[in-house]
């Protein structure tokens, strides 16, 4: 609750020591599918960076590289920001564990979790489930949950890790607007409290503006940074506020241009243009 | 019964002597089956059977497989030891087989470690036999009983009897895990030559005339009924082979090793062959009394239910053949 002041938290990287730094990072899949093309990107400690880009532009690839799950073909990645937690695009829950046990496992492995008792972890897991509005579902198994509920469990698990850097790949994609709003608030609160560095992939431009200190636009395949928008709106912001909507419209326009530039020859022949993997 | 597959085509088709018929003969690649080895190698069977009967041989590694083959109509005759013959007789209630000739006698010894000198020394020792309830096993138990040593079928008692395969006996004797074994040739010779064993008992010493059956020839009863002529020819070949063995032991040994080489890829070492061959007598006499006595012993030591062996022998043909050759007839008692 001793959160730093808002001004300090929402500032750009410049003064800060970077928590995550990508330097001309490229990624080639297989022989010749260039997924990322010399991406250079920095997230300051405690910064909330949102990534936007068309489907298949390499956002998940980028997060995977930062998380150290895959190796970049070229370029350098520094993650000095501390321990990394990640929410995958799919829930990736362990089917053999109950919902609560999935979270307890994360608590157990991470940092101070090692010294906690099973009972403490269970209590903490229940708390985290409350946060994602799934109290009372701890004893269920993942397959007994709906898609959106699984996603929320994955969020709870990522939060359980108490990491310093949080990578989130479309974390709220399967949620209704209401639940999403509630979780936005929760995420913002935790981000503030824990001084997290967040890399947040989304397709919802308003969500990006609602949450981010900065919105980074990636081009279509191969993914590369085309523009960055610092968001200086005061927090707390509201998704349906006019300011957020306005900024979102600007960014959407820019995105639209980018997509259109790539998808030049209209509908059908788009394919040859969209291939871009030669 | 009739044959179904390629190897058994003509058999059981009826007693047509003119038709091309088959005789399927089984034996083991084993020195106690030398009559068969020599008979096959030297062509005695083929010659006796003539052009109208084809000889098909099948080799087995142990009695049960041969018995199964006889039962299943897969062979017509086989050389076999006394135990499987008794089993085949008793299990089929006297329907499956007949013993039609003897083949070999003797060549069974109790081989022990050098430091053992008498029956009394065997107390607390481990002695191997080839198979629970087989001739050697029964002989050992009966002998120990006579020596006043107690045994039981579970390896307990004064002397612990361990039924195990002969090949394993060679190894366990060499490594000192057992103290002795009641085994037939060529294992007895190998134990002596390879592992410095010595003979404590020569089983033939325990029998009248120093002879007891170790191999004989059995035929399927059905076959005997349908093709007495072929059985007669088979026995003629058999008698020829035994005659050759006693007249030319050197040539016989050569033939034996050649056939063993053919069948199992490995001949016996000459010294093993020599010593084993010397200890076995090849005879047409099935030594019926010893078989019956042995079965009696088995009942006494509790390894065999009472069995009526009356009629297991059919030596009429053998005696015909022998008398044609001017030799003495043999008895089935």
């Amino acid at each position: 609750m001793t959160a730093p002041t808002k001004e300090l938290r929402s500032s750009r990287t410049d003064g800060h020591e970077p928590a995550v730094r990508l330097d001309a990072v490229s990624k080639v899949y297989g022989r010749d599918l260039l997924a990322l093309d010399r991406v250079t990107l920095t997230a300051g400690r405690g910064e909330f960076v949102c990534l936007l880009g068309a489907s298949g532009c390499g956002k998940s690839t980028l997060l995977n590289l930062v998380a150290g799950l895959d190796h970049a073909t070229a370029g350098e990645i520094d993650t000095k920001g501390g321990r990394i937690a990640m929410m995958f695009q799919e829930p990736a829950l362990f089917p053999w564990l109950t919902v609560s046990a999935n979270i307890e496992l994360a608590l157990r492995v991470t940092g101070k979790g090692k010294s906690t008792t099973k009972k403490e972890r269970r209590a903490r897991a229940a708390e985290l489930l409350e946060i994602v509005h799934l109290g009372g579902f701890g004893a269920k198994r993942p397959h007994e949950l709906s898609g959106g509920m699984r996603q929320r469990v994955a969020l709870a698990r990522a939060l359980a890790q108490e990491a310093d850097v949080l990578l989130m790949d479309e974390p709220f994609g399967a949620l209704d607007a209401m639940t999403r709003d509630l979780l936005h608030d929760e995420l913002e609160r935790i981000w503030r409290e824990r001084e997290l560095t967040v890399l947040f992939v989304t397709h919802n431009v308003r969500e990006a503006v609602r949450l981010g200190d900065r919105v980074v636009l990636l081009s279509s395949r191969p993914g590369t940074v085309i523009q960055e928008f610092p968001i200086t709106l005061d927090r707390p912001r509201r998704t349906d506020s006019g300011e957020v909507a306005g900024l979102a419209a600007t960014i959407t326009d820019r995105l639209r241009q980018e997509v259109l530039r790539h998808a030049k020859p209209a509908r059908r022949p788009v394919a040859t243009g969209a291939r871009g993997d030669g | 019964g009739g044959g179904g597959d390629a190897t058994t085509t003509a058999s059981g088709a009826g007693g047509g002597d003119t038709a091309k018929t088959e005789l399927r003969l089984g034996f083991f690649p084993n020195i106690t089956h030398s009559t068969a080895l020599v008979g096959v190698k030297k062509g005695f069977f083929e010659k006796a059977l003539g052009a109208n009967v084809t000889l098909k041989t099948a080799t087995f590694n142990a009695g049960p497989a041969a018995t199964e083959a006889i039962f299943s109509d897969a062979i017509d005759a086989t050389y076999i030891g006394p135990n499987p013959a008794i089993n085949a007789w008793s299990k089929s209630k006297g329907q499956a087989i007949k013993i039609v000739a003897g083949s070999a006698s003797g060549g069974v010894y109790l081989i022990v470690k050098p430091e053992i000198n008498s029956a009394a020394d065997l107390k607390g020792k481990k002695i191997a036999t080839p198979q629970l309830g087989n001739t050697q096993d029964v002989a050992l138990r009966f002998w120990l009983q006579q020596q006043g040593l107690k045994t039981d079928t579970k390896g307990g008692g004064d002397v612990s009897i361990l039924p195990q395969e002969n090949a394993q006996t060679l190894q366990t004797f060499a490594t000192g895990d057992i103290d002795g074994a009641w085994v037939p040739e060529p294992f007895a010779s190998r134990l002596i030559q390879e592992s410095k064993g010595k003979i404590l008992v020569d089983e033939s010493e325990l029998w009248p005339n120093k002879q007891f059956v170790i191999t004989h020839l059995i035929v399927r009863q059905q076959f005997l009924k349908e093709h007495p002529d072929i059985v007669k020819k088979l026995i003629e070949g058999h008698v020829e082979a035994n005659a050759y063995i006693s007249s030319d032991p050197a040539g016989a040994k050569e033939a034996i090793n050649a056939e063993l080489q053919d069948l199992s890829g490995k001949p016996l070492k000459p010294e093993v062959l020599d010593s084993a061959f010397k200890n076995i007598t090849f005879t047409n006499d099935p030594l019926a009394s010893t078989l019956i006595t042995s079965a009696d012993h088995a009942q006494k030591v509790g390894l065999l239910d009472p069995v009526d062996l009356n009629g297991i022998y059919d030596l009429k043909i053998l005696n015909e053949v022998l008398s044609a050759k001017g030799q003495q007839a043999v008895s089935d008692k």
Partner: protein
Amino acid sequence: MTTTEISQSIAGLDALELSTRERRGLASRIWSRAWPMISAIVLVLAVWEVVVLSGWRPEYVLPGPITVLGELGDRLGDGEFYNAVFTTMRRAIVGFALAVLVGLVVGAAVSRVRPLRAAFGSLITGLQTMPSIAWFPLAILLFKLSESAILFVVVLGAAPSIANGLIAGVDYTPPILLRAGHILGLRRLALYRHVILPASLPSFLSGLKQGWAFAWRSLMAGELLVIIAHQTSIGEQLDNARELSDAPGLLATMIVILVIGIVVDMCFGAADNALRRRWGLDQPVG
């Protein structure tokens, strides 16, 4: 009706249904599992009897079910039989437990350590194909004529299978779960324990089942290796029956082996069903 009422009434209905279901459970559920088995058995016995009655082979070669079941009944009335079953089961269980241990360690090591895999991976299947009798001399060299020699043969028979099951499971663990585990900070042994092992459980379970079969077959052979005082065993009985050309005895022993195999399979089956239920693999499809 309000929602709560509805859900209460449904719970009520459910409870009702449940109680009948459970009452059925005691009779009908067992029955529904049992009838196909019983009819299968009856069918097999009938065909068997018909073949025997047809006189295809004499009774002493192919005895009828009545003879064989009579023989089996005689044995069931004899204490010796239970001793034999007990001895063999004890050896099977001890040998299998050892094999699981060995298989687990070897499988874990080989599946994750690349040079070990290159060196020994294929050797595991190689060992699996080695017939038990080939190990007898070595078993005796190492363990003399003791029960350990039998267990040695059993372990050598079953462990490769169990290791292979684990390796297959590890190989087919979904990468996304491995990544999730990695991100949680699980490494090496912890990753193994918390992700790879549970994810490989289905394959491991089927490896265990195969391993049991190998263990049992090796045991049947191995029990002829050493005959230990005052301990008859099923392997010995099987061999004796064959040695004595005792067809009813052989078939009775085969039935005993089958029944034990079936019971063991049912245990594995129960474990398997529990696993599938927990993993949500038993959902309806259409």
